């Protein structure tokens, strides 16, 4: 290549490059939400993960992974207050299969943590699995983190979540008295220490602050059964609707937006989703989200 051709080529490239890069980014940025349905919960969980490219895409050999279910309440599995143990176990298994060095499962519970761990069924189902930890929260491990958010300037977050290589958010889709629904964006509260009730006074902005600072690499929403009223803890089997669905996305806002439709609501009805969308944390416009039935 002589100098002239080189200059021409590089000139053309420098003109075209921004366009090309933008195109490439736009393609990558289209949010993908995978949905699977079936009564075999491990199978549908595996399906949605595979539709997103498989766990190997997120977990590299030797990684420390945090799998954060919602197990905040002392309720039996069928009451849809906690993430289904089979979904949790399958996610953990996939992480291990992808080469994770250690998988940590925990939640900062609302009821007595021992009862929550036992009666959610999660502690028991993970018992005996190698390189898997299901430990109770230890308060000294919360670290004050500067968030510089709109409402939360700083907050204590759990160091095991902060230091993990991969953070997988595994909420259950539930009604919530204040935020209408609790999904991926709200499940992040499980890594918060301190007086978490404080954020209720401005919960939408606070959750956007948190999620802006702390990213879930993968959000897997358990909608095998959902709690349609008296959330977030329920207690009445009549409020539970069995859907046999699992939803997954790397875009937490998109995952939440799609899950909202399961309740007959629109993403715009959920202030937390709207706040996160406005903050640029993801896509909530269902028309712009690619939904894949796995």
């Amino acid at each position: 290549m002589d100098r002239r051709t080189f200059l021409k080529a590089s000139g053309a490239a420098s003109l075209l490059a921004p366009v090309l890069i933008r195109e490439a980014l736009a393609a990558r940025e289209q949010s993908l939400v995978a949905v699977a349905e079936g009564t075999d919960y491990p199978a549908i969980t595996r399906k949605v993960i595979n539709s997103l490219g498989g766990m190997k895409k997120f977990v590299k050999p030797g990684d420390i992974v945090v799998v954060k279910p919602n197990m905040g309440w002392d309720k039996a599995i069928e009451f849809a207050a906690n993430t289904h143990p089979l979904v949790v176990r399958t996610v953990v298994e996939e992480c291990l299969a992808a080469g994770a060095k250690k998988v940590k499962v925990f939640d900062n519970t609302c009821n007595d943590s021992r009862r929550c761990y036992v009666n959610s069924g999660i502690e028991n189902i993970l018992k005996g699995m190698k390189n898997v930890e299901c430990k109770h929260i230890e308060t000294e491990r919360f670290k004050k983190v500067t968030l510089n958010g709109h409402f939360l300037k700083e907050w204590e977050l759990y160091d095991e979540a902060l230091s993990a290589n991969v953070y997988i958010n595994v909420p259950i889709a539930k009604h919530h008295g204040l935020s209408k629904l609790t999904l991926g964006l709200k499940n992040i509260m499980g890594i918060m220490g301190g007086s978490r009730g404080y954020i209720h006074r401005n919960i939408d902005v606070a959750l956007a602050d948190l999620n802006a600072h702390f990213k879930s690499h993968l959000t897997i929403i358990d909608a095998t059964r959902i709690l349609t009223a008296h959330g977030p803890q329920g207690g009445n089997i009549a409020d539970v609707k069995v859907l046999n669905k699992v939803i997954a996305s790397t875009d937490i806002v998109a995952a939440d937006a799609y899950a909202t439709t399961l309740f007959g609501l629109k993403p715009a009805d959920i202030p937390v989703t709207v706040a996160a969308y406005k903050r640029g944390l993801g896509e909530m416009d269902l028309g712009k989200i690619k939904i894949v039935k796995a």
Partner: protein
Amino acid sequence: MKRTPSRISQLFFLALFLILFVQTEYRGKDEINAAVNTFFRVNPLVLFSYVLAAKSWTWLLLPALLMTLATLALGRFFCGWICPLGTILDLVTTRIRKTTPIKALKGNTKYWLLLPLLSASLFNLNLSGLLDPIAILLRGLTFLLHPLAGLATREAWVGLYHLIGERRDAVAPAYNLIHDNILPFRDTIYPLALFSTVVLLTIIALERFETRTWCRDLCPLGTLLGWLGRFSPFRRIPAALCGDCGACRELCPTSFDQKNLVQEECILCMDCQRGCPHERISFRPSLALKGAGPLQPERRVLLGGMAAGVLLAVPAKFRSPEQVSRLLRPPGVRSEDEFLKRCVRCGECMKVCLKSALYPAAYQAGIEGFYTPLMIPRLGYCEYNCTLCGQVCPTGAIPLLPVESKRREVVGKAVFDKNHCLPFARKIDCIVCEEHCPIPEKAIRSRAVTVIGIDGIARTVKEPYIVEEICNGCGICENVCPLETKSGIDIFAVKDRTPISREPSSPYG
């Protein structure tokens, strides 16, 4: 260390007591080991005061009845073979140099303790647990020594984290082993902790004067057992010191410092039999009552002691109304009077309480309620699906209820304090209480109302309200209220504790 049969038995029961003590904790199962309260259920002092006060019978105390019969037959063997406090005294006493016995405690002192307790029980004031040796030991362990052990270990564990951070995980299995099996899950600080421990240590310190000062001169359980045991045909032969020897005087841990053995103070350790240089001594059934000593207590002590109990029973009932309004009892306790007659203040419920909601009353329940359990919601709430306190209560003062019934039992009722509660006081959203309310139909609900904010701008806030008929007063709302100052919602005691009406669905509904 001695290896006599009685000492081996003592060590066995001390170990059993400690094992049952650390098992008095939620360890992943809804049902706790039913044996954890055994030492109270075999306790004749608990039985006598319960029957006198409640004027009724409970099968929970059948073991205590059997112990009473066994003591009638064999004598005061409990003190020398079983009592964990007696064992602790025997273990430490060899290291304590003796001065001279306290004269003032000799004679009738023990009856002046036992008789008022029993007669007050008859007049509905059951205070026997205050001086029951097993209760004294358990409270000392529960309120200070166990939390202290937990706290110390935990501080070291936290210190290690600040030192080496996450690398601490390498030794986590060792810590978890201790924490999960021996230490309390939560390191609760209790009122009366210091007092309870001082009482226990004072009893140990009394060993300075002579062996088993507490058991000889004070313990109401020992006194009761001794009194029952004096009718036992099973006794030491000969009943008096032999004229040519007198070695028993040195061998006996309790009372052989006079010519005749005082039958009600013999704890049947049989050390004299083993130590006799002439092999003259035996323990066997005998009808000879010769040399049994004067029948105690004397009539004036008997009558005086009983009168003292009556005099105690009335003024002890004073209570301040402000305190009573917050006097929240464990779930299932519907009548304060019936509760007080049955509660032995042993501390078991406070030890086992899942959320550390129960604390000993120091002044809140008056003299008659000293050491009785009360719930302090700001420190801990009653977990909806937990029935542990009813399971460990040795007398059924806290009834053992199936979880479906317990959920409906009323501890108190929640009331909002609108001067503090955020949606009312500051016109901003909160409703953490509604979120946590465990009643499936929600005893705390909220409605969206348009209000003028403190900035003068109209906005919509969710104002909470209480559905009183289905509030069971569990206290989780007061516990989780995010206000740092006083809670925006309080649980108040109510007289009518009829269970809430609606049937929650099960299990864990």
